C-alpha cells in the first residue's frame, strides 16, 4: 500500500509489562486457568497492531485488560506511560469495537453513535452533528434513525466503528470485528479499515485468528499461543523469518523436515536430514543453536522450486535447456541447495500445482509450481525423477 507513510518510531502508546491473567476454574478450588502468561509488549503510537492466535490463546483477554473489563492478576498495563490498574473503563482513553458489535438495541443508529459524546457532556445538538459526521466517515448509506436490528451485519459493523471513533480515542481496540462478515465484505472492510487507520493516525489494536487478515492490515503482529506471545514483528518478518515451529505452522503453509545441525557459519547452518546423507544449507532462526542438535527445517512450498532430472527444463519465456546444464549453472551459487527426489503425487489447483516430492526415501516436501503457461508446460508426472532446489535464505532452521 503506497499510501502508507507512517512514522512508527514514535512514542509507546500501550505497554504491557509481565502481565499475567488467571481465571478461577468453576468447581475446582485449587486450579486456576492462566489465560495470559507473562506477556510484555510495546505498541507504538499510530501503529496498526494485530494480536494473532488460535481461539483460546488469550488474545481477547489481553484486549479486555487494555479496555479495563478485566483486571490483570499481576503485571502492569500502561497507556501513554500511565498505569491503568485502578482506572475504570469509562476513564480510559481507549474505545472498543466488539466482536458482536454490542449496539444498543433500544436506540437508533444516531443515538448509538451519540451516546459516547453525551457521556462526555457534549450538548445534544453538537453531539448529533459529530455523530452524523462519524457516520459519514464510515460511509453508512442508511437513515440514522433506524434501529440496529434493521441493519445488515456489515452496516452494524460500521455503526460500531463510528460509535467508537466519534470519541477520538487514543487507542482503538477491535475484537475480531470482521469475523461475522462474509468473505467478500471482509476483504473490502480490511482495506477500508487499514486506510481509515492511516488517515486518522489512531493506534489500532486488532484481535484476529485469521492470519491473512493480520498480514493484510497490520504494521506489526504479535503471534500468541497458550497465553504467551511467541513472536512480534512486521508481517514480512513473521512470515519469512518465523522463530518457532508454531509460528511457521500457524502462518501460511509450511513443511517441516527433521534433521541434525552439522555445521554453522554465521547466519547459516547445515542440516542433515534424519536417516539420509542429504545435507542442505539454511538460515538459522537462532545463532545459538548447538551443533549436533536436533532441529526442524521449515520449508515454504512457494519458496522452493523443481525441475526434471532428465531431459530438458522449460522456462516461462518458452526457451529450454538441458537439465544437466541447468543444474550445473545453479550449482555455481553456493547458497542454492539441490536435492534429488521423485514426484509422489500431483495436485492441480488452477493457479498452481502442488507436488509432493519424496527426497532421500524418507521425507516429503511440498512444492508449489505456478502454472504460468498451459498445464503441459509445467507438469510433472507421478514417479518422475526431479531436482528440488531452494535458496538457503528462504528455508529456516528451527529448534524442534
Amino acid at each position, binding site marked *: 500500500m503506497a499510501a502508507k507513510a507512517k512514522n512508527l518510531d514514535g512514542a509507546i502508546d500501550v505497554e504491557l509489562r509481565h502481565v499475567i491473567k488467571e481465571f478461577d476454574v468453576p468447581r475446582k478450588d485449587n486450579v486456576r486457568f492462566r489465560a495470559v502468561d507473562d506477556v510484555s509488549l510495546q505498541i507504538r503510537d499510530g501503529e496498526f497492531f494485530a494480536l494473532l492466535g488460535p481461539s483460546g490463546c488469550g488474545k481477547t483477554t489481553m484486549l479486555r485488560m487494555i479496555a479495563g*473489563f478485566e483486571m490483570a492478576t499481576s503485571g502492569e498495563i500502561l497507556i501513554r506511560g500511565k498505569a491503568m490498574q485502578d482506572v475504570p473503563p469509562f476513564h480510559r482513553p481507549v*474505545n472498543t469495537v466488539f466482536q*458482536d458489535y454490542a449496539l444498543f438495541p433500544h436506540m437508533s443508529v444516531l443515538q448509538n453513535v451519540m451516546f459516547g459524546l453525551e457521556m462526555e457532556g457534549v450538548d445534544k445538538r453538537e453531539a448529533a452533528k459529530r455523530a452524523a459526521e462519524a457516520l459519514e466517515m464510515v460511509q453508512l448509506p442508511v437513515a440514522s434513525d433506524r434501529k440496529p436490528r434493521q441493519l445488515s451485519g456489515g452496516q452494524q459493523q460500521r455503526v460500531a466503528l463510528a460509535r467508537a471513533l466519534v470519541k477520538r480515542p487514543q487507542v482503538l481496540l477491535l475484537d475480531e470485528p470482521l469475523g461475522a462478515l462474509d468473505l467478500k465484505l471482509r476483504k473490502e472492510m480490511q482495506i477500508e479499515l487499514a486506510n481509515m487507520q492511516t488517515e486518522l493516525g489512531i493506534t489500532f489494536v486488532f484481535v484476529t485468528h485469521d492470519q491473512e487478515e493480520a498480514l493484510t492490515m497490520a504494521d506489526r503482529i504479535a503471534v500468541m499461543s497458550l497465553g504467551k506471545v511467541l513472536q512480534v514483528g512486521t508481517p514480512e518478518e513473521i512470515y519469512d523469518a518465523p522463530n518457532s515451529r508454531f509460528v511457521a505452522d500457524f502462518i501460511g503453509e509450511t513443511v517441516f523436515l527433521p534433521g541434525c545441525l552439522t555445521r554453522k557459519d554465521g547466519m547459516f547452518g547445515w542440516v542433515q536430514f534424519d536417516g539420509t546423507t542429504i545435507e542442505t544449507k539454511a538460515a538459522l532462526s537462532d545463532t545459538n543453536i548447538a551443533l549436533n542438535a536436533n532441529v526442524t527445517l521449515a520449508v515454504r512450498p512457494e519458496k522452493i522450486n523443481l525441475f526434471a532430472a532428465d531431459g530438458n527444463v522449460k522456462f516461462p519465456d518458452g526457451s529450454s535447456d538441458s537439465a544437466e546444464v541447468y543444474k550445473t549453472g545453479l550449482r555455481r551459487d553456493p547458497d542454492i541447495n539441490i536435492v534429488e527426489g521423485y514426484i509422489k503425487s500431483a495436485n492441480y489447483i488452477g493457479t498452481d500445482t502442488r507436488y509432493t516430492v519424496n527426497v532421500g526415501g524418507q521425507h516429503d516436501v511440498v512444492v508449489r509450481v505456478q502454472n504460468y503457461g498451459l498445464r503441459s508446460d509445467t507438469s510433472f508426472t507421478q514417479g518422475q525423477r526431479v531436482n528440488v532446489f531452494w535458496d538457503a535464505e528462504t528455508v529456516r532452521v528451527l529448534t524442534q
Partner: protein
Amino acid sequence: MAQTALTPSLPTAPDIDMGAVRRDMAIRRTGKVFYVFNAAVTYFFLWAPIVVLIVFSFNDSRSVARWEGFTLQWYQNIFANVTGGASRAATSGALDALGNSFIIGIISTLIATVLATALALALVRFRFPGKSFIDGLLYLPVVIPEIAQAVSLVLFFSVIFDFYNATLAASLGLPNANRGFGTIIVGHVVFNIAFVVVVIRARLADMNPRLEEAARDLGANEWQTFTRITLPLLMPAIVAGALLAFTLSLDDYLITAYLSGPGTNTLTVFVFGLMRRGISPEINAISTLMIVISIVLIGISMMLQGRNAAGGK
C-alpha cells in the same frame, strides 16, 4: 442357460404382511379418535363452568339454574355499590372491595417489583458462596402450600404485634398495631417477589453482557450504564413481572383473608362472604369481571415477555 443370462431376473417383491398393515392402521385411527375425544373432554371441564358463570351473570333472574332473559342489572348493582334494598344479597361494598383490591394490588406490586428487580440483578451478577442455596430459598414461597404461608404470616405478625403492643405502645401511649392494609400488603409482597424475580431473571440472563461493557467503554459510569442501558432493556420484563404480580395480588384469597382486619375487604374476601349465603347473580358478575381483568393483564404480561425473547439481543 443362455436365456437366463440374457433376461435379467426381476428383483422379488418385498414380503409384506398386509394383515399386519391393516391392523396397525386401525390402531392409528383409533388412537386419533381417542386424542380428539380426550382433548374435547379436557377443554369442556376447563371452560364449561366458566362459560356457565359468564352466561348466568347476565341472567334476568335470581334463580341460578334457569335462564329468563338478558340483563345488565347485576353489573349495575356492583357499580352502584348498592346497599341492601330490593336485592336480597348485599352487594353493598362491592365497589369498596374492588377499591381495596386495587390499592393493595398497586402498592404491593410496586414494592415487590422494585425489590425483585434489585434481587434479580444481584442474583445474576454476583457470585458468592452458597448462591444456589439462596436461589432455592427464593422459590420456596412458590412451592410451599399457601395455607402454610398464610398461617406463618399470621403467627409472625401476632408475635411482633403482641410484643410491640405490650412494650412500645403501652409505655409511650402509641396506638396498638393490628392486622389491616399493612399486613396484607406485606403478605402479597412476600409471595409476589419470587414470581417477579423469575420473569426479570430470564430477561437478564438473555441480555448480552457486552452491552453494558460497551456503555462503560463509551464513558458511562455505573449509574449511567444502569439508567441508560440496563433499565430500558429490562423494562419489558419489569412491566410483565409487575402485571403478573398485580394479577396474583388481585386474585389472592387465602393470605388476604388471614391477614385482613376490619374494613379491609378485598374483592375475593367479599365474594367469599357472599358465597356463604349461596350463589347469587352478583357473585357471577363480580367473578366474570375478575376473570376479564386477569385475562387482560396476564395477556399483556405474556405479550411483553414474548417480545423480550424475540427482540432481546
